[in-house]
């Protein structure tokens, strides 16, 4: 079946609809570096046409990490407006709490796991939520660095706009 990512150009800009996993074990969050582009993200990816966000994330976890993820509650729903690589983005994000099998946990190794999916290399790391690791991380979207160490216990709506409106 042909897959259609919900990411498309509009007037030379780009609309993205993403879903991501918040995986926290022993005070560490699992993050992913893709193709050494200098950015870190939470595991996840773009939602496909016709696909419910929850199913989409289970698929992405399986494809990227290669482990079965169990979805918890939706924690964050975000609308982000930002610019990267000379392109303006309008991005919707849904962030679910996800748990992995019990033996998937920080073990001192970095990267913890390296996988290949659709021509991309994914390097996974566990980053301590309470140390310098978070501040040194070039984690996108930016507001995650603030929010992850103090996650709200109920669904929270975030609007993040880094455009210069002046």
């Amino acid at each position: 079946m042909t897959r259609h990512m919900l990411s498309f150009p509009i007037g030379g800009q780009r609309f993205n609809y993403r879903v991501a996993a918040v995986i926290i074990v022993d005070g560490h969050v699992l993050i992913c570096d893709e193709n050494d582009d200098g950015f870190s993200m939470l595991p996840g990816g773009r939602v496909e046409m016709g696909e419910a966000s929850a199913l989409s994330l289970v698929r992405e976890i399986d494809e990227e990490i290669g482990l079965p993820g169990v979805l918890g509650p939706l924690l964050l729903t975000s609308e982000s407006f930002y610019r990267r690589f000379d392109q303006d983005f309008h991005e919707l994000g849904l962030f679910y709490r996800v748990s992995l099998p019990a033996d998937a946990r920080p073990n001192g190794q970095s990267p913890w796991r390296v996988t290949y999916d659709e021509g991309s290399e994914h390097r996974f790391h566990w980053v301590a939520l309470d140390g310098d690791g978070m501040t040194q991380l070039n984690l996108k979207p930016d507001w995650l660095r603030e929010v992850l160490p103090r996650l709200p216990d109920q669904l929270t709506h975030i609007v993040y706009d880094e455009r210069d409106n002046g």
Partner: protein
Amino acid sequence: MAEAPARHMIAYDLAPGRFSFRAGAIILRDGHVLATRTTTETIWYLPGGRVEWGESTRVAVQREIVEELGMSGEVGELAIMLESFFTYRDKRFHELAYYYPVTLPDDFPFRTDGEVCHRGRDGEVDLEFKWLRTDAESLRANDFKPEALYGVLYDLPVVPRHVIWVGDGEESA
């Protein structure tokens, strides 16, 4: 005069159907919700419309209220985020919709006799508005969509509620 920036609605046709991104207003008064429809259709729905590129859903709701009702409303915090999958006129839809409670000025006409209380225009189409009772039976009798909102319109969540709704005979991939 400076040329207005181009407006781009977020809706996209792909081979399997249409993706659309909407923002809607939940306007409640005395056990009723304000609903609208185009005069050429039978389905009633919440005021609102498609989100434009670069526009937050909150701003989209504010804009749509002004366009459709000719007045400003006070927009509250996000109440419902709905992902729905349905077929309408032989076309499959994957729709994201963000719903906000909105308070209108007190002088907006309120009538409970089922008659039209307001008429407006949105682009090329004529709109009419009426107040529907919020119970599911009344919404169903009036062919109100989306059905996923039956049962939630009279008791709005304080914390945003996320709903995934798959229509009859549909499957989400």
